[in-house]
């Protein structure tokens, strides 16, 4: 044992609260403190999120009122909305950038960047990330990437317009459509910067979780949040490089006349060079090898946050802690072998298709395990319905209703009909969009006191939750019916098809719900920024939670703990433990007579 004490002293050998002078620049701008970097990610993510939401408002207006001009649009979109009518090609640009922002910038970097940074060191008992420098660089690459993407809105020809999946040939031939030129180039640069950022973040998260846990923090005592961040980082680290490789080949096709993704394109359409011998399907394979793990990169941290918030606010241990870890690992592994379910209509060999069907349906098993464990955690709990708790329950609801439609899409025979219809839009907006956003919101409400030392206003929080929750279902649920009837996605108007006239009113309804849901986010923004200065002062452990971050002082000092880093004696879910005196026992509290952190605590004593 002596060795461990030695090791741990090494961990602790610097007092945390070194109050050396920090300038504004080193504290707020080029900060290497993980808590500050988390806030930088969060605020950048929120700004990008606002942009993404505003875009969706514009194209929702277009979809509901295809014949009505909105002159005010011309004021800020110029020639893209001449006389208040949205230009069809700009519609495509908007959905492309909307999708890119939401998937990568808000729900990947905004979500993981914020909570991995904030919670990994605090919950495992470390003074900071393994490499604070890499951590800072990770944020700066992300910011640069965001700026490049936003700047692509202002270039000639507009931003990339071939969908967030940037399939060739639209993305591979700079003259294909208006957004294929400069806009697409900037999109690629932005994504390369993004991959660098995620790589720098990812190596750091993994190294920190594996190497820097405080004494007693066994892997089987890690909060589920940390498990989810670890697996997310691994997924990102293994899938983003494939996107990088795909992007490299795409850049050569675009700029140097190669034909990796192109075939049978005559020279006069392709910059004077005949393109033969390549295949756009190759791009799809490479893209979805990233693309499917990417959806789990988005949802896993949200699920981790939910586990934590549900257990804390149900005052019960999370149901099936090890099953939760096991199913997250299973999801992470399986997510690498199901990418083909996005490609059922590419003329794939039906046998291969059935392999992908099988893989996809198997993922439903660990997903269902998680869902039932959530429900079992809530069952007979002593629920404290804080705003964070409501958002977490909201996530569970979306994960169920969106996951069920995944079973439809995962069957090749059904997907061949449903592919590229609004059914898919409904599916992924519920299971990925809404669920992950609700997870993120839950995390923000729950850990706001840790980030800013103040509480957010609960009344506004409830208002925000209920409007958003109802609006999200009103927006996305009807889309299933449109999809089943065959309404295609990525069309800027469906007025040319008589059989879709029945959906005119439904489209108006959706748009009104979307506008209300969008407006509800203003409540959140107000609450968020107002509370930074004016919120009620937070106590040290406002939610009576067990995890280590609540043992740090409210002041959020550099190095996290003023004295020694606490040791860990138990798992994080000792809520309402039978026989215990209090209804929660933080991880750093030993059992009576327990001296060795590695020893297990006594089992609960049932009366």
């Amino acid at each position, binding site marked *: 044992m002596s060795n*461990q004490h030695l090791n741990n002293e090494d961990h602790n050998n610097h007092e945390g609260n070194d109050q050396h002078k920090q300038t504004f620049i080193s504290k707020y701008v080029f900060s290497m403190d993980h808590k500050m970097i988390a806030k930088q990610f969060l605020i950048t993510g929120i700004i990008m999120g606002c942009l993404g939401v505003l875009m969706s408002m514009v194209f929702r207006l277009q979809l509901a009122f295809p014949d009505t001009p909105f002159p005010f649009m011309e004021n800020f979109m110029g020639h893209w909305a001449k006389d208040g009518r949205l230009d069809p090609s700009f519609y495509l640009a908007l959905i492309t950038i909307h999708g890119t922002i939401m998937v990568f910038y808000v729900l990947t970097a905004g979500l993981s960047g914020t909570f991995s940074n904030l919670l990994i060191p605090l919950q495992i008992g470390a*003074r900071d990330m393994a490499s604070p420098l890499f951590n800072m660089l990770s944020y700066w690459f992300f910011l640069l990437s965001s700026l490049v993407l936003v700047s692509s809105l202002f270039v000639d020809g507009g931003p990339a317009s071939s969908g967030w999946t940037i399939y060739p040939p639209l993305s591979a031939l700079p003259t294909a459509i208006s957004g294929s030129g400069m806009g697409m180039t900037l999109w690629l640069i932005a994504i390369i910067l993004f991959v660098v950022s995620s790589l720098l973040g990812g190596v750091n998260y993994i190294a920190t979780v*594996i190497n820097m846990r405080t*004494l*007693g923090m066994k892997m089987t005592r890690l909060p589920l949040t940390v498990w989810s961040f670890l697996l997310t980082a691994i997924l990102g680290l293994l899938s983003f490089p494939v996107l990088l490789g795909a992007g490299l080949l795409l850049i*050569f096709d675009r700029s140097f006349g*190669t*034909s*990796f993704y192109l075939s049978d394109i005559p020279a006069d359409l392709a910059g004077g060079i005949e393109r033969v011998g390549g295949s756009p399907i190759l791009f799809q394979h490479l893209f979805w090898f990233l693309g499917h793990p990417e959806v789990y990169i988005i949802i896993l941290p949200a699920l981790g946050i939910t586990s934590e918030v549900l257990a804390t606010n149900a005052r019960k241990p999370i149901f099936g802690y090890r099953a939760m870890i096991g199913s997250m690992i299973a999801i992470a592994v399986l997510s690498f072998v199901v990418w083909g379910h996005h490609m059922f209509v590419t003329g794939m060999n039906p046998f291969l298709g059935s392999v992908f069907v099988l893989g996809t349906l198997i993922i439903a098993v660990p997903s269902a395990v998680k869902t039932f464990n959530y429900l079992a955690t809530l069952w007979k709990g002593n629920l404290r319905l804080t705003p964070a708790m409501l958002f977490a329950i909201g996530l569970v609801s979306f994960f169920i209703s969106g996951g069920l439609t995944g079973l439809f899409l995962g069957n090749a025979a059904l997907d061949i009909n449903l592919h590229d219809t609004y059914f898919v839009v409904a599916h992924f907006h519920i299971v990925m969009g809404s669920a992950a956003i609700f997870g993120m919101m839950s995390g923000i409400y729950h850990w706001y006191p840790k980030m800013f030392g103040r509480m957010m206003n609960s009344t506004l929080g409830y208002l925000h939750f209920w409007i958003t929750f109802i609006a999200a279902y009103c927006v996305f649920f009807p889309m299933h019916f449109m999809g089943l009837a065959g309404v295609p996605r990525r069309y800027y108007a469906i007025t040319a098809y008589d059989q879709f006239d029945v959906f005119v009113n439904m489209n108006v309804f959706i748009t009104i719900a979307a506008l209300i849901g969008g407006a509800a986010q203003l409540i959140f923004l107000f609450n968020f920024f107002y509370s930074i200065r004016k919120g009620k002062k937070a106590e040290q452990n406002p939610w009576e939670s067990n995890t280590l971050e609540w043992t740090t002082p409210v002041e959020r000092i550099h190095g996290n703990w003023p004295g020694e880093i606490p040791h860990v004696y138990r798992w994080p879910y000792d809520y309402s433990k039978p026989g215990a005196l209090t209804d929660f026992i933080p991880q750093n509290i030993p059992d009576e007579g327990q001296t060795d952190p*590695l020893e297990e605590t006594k089992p609960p004593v049932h009366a």
Partner: protein
Amino acid sequence: MSDTTSITSDPAKEPVEQKALWGGGRSPFTISYGKFMMWIFLLSDTFTFSALLIGYGFTRHSFEGNTVTPWPTPDQVFNHFPFLHGMHLPLIFVSVMTFILMFSSVTMGFAVEAGHRMAKKEVSFYMLLTILGGIGFLGCMAWEWAQFINGTEAGKMLADGSVFHGANLHLNEYGPTAFADLFFIVTGFHGVHVLSGIIINSTIYINVLKGTYEKRGHYEMVEKVGLYWHFVDLVWVFVFTFFYLI
């Protein structure tokens, strides 16, 4: 910010009972975070190369049974050797190249080993050899590319009746354009890795000469760049296999 690095100092490396490996307060692999991060990075980079090589496999597969522009046989393309004109020497030159790179991996290993013994002189000697090996490899690669680009006297008749020699990203006398495209990109991407390896190794070499690591008390930096260098070599084995052997 001065002591950000020190507050995150790494768990020490003393041996510990097996059962406590994952118990926290130490690194379960008994390895510093820096070296661990290098491993993780290399794992990630493996996937970048895999993407490119899978692209190669996919494209090549689509040429199976294509009799109009069949995929070329490497023996017929890479059969030159400097100063030996007109002789058919399949894959001899690339073997020399490969040997040089492998040899630089061996010297790198010696440098790392010498680092454990804190033998500064030997570390610097072997680092130098490694750097020279890397430069030698890149030189060979340049010659190989030049051969490939300039092509043979025979060349290939184009649709407009002119004759084209060698290969670039749009035309290729040896077979399908895709073959040349992939050759340039994959070996080029590997070459960029070698080049950055040489730059990194040189930086470390200068630090060794300056005695930086002697002062620090360990040569772990040499180990880290060693990992990278072995990785670059290993990748070459795959690139070599794909482009030259099968």
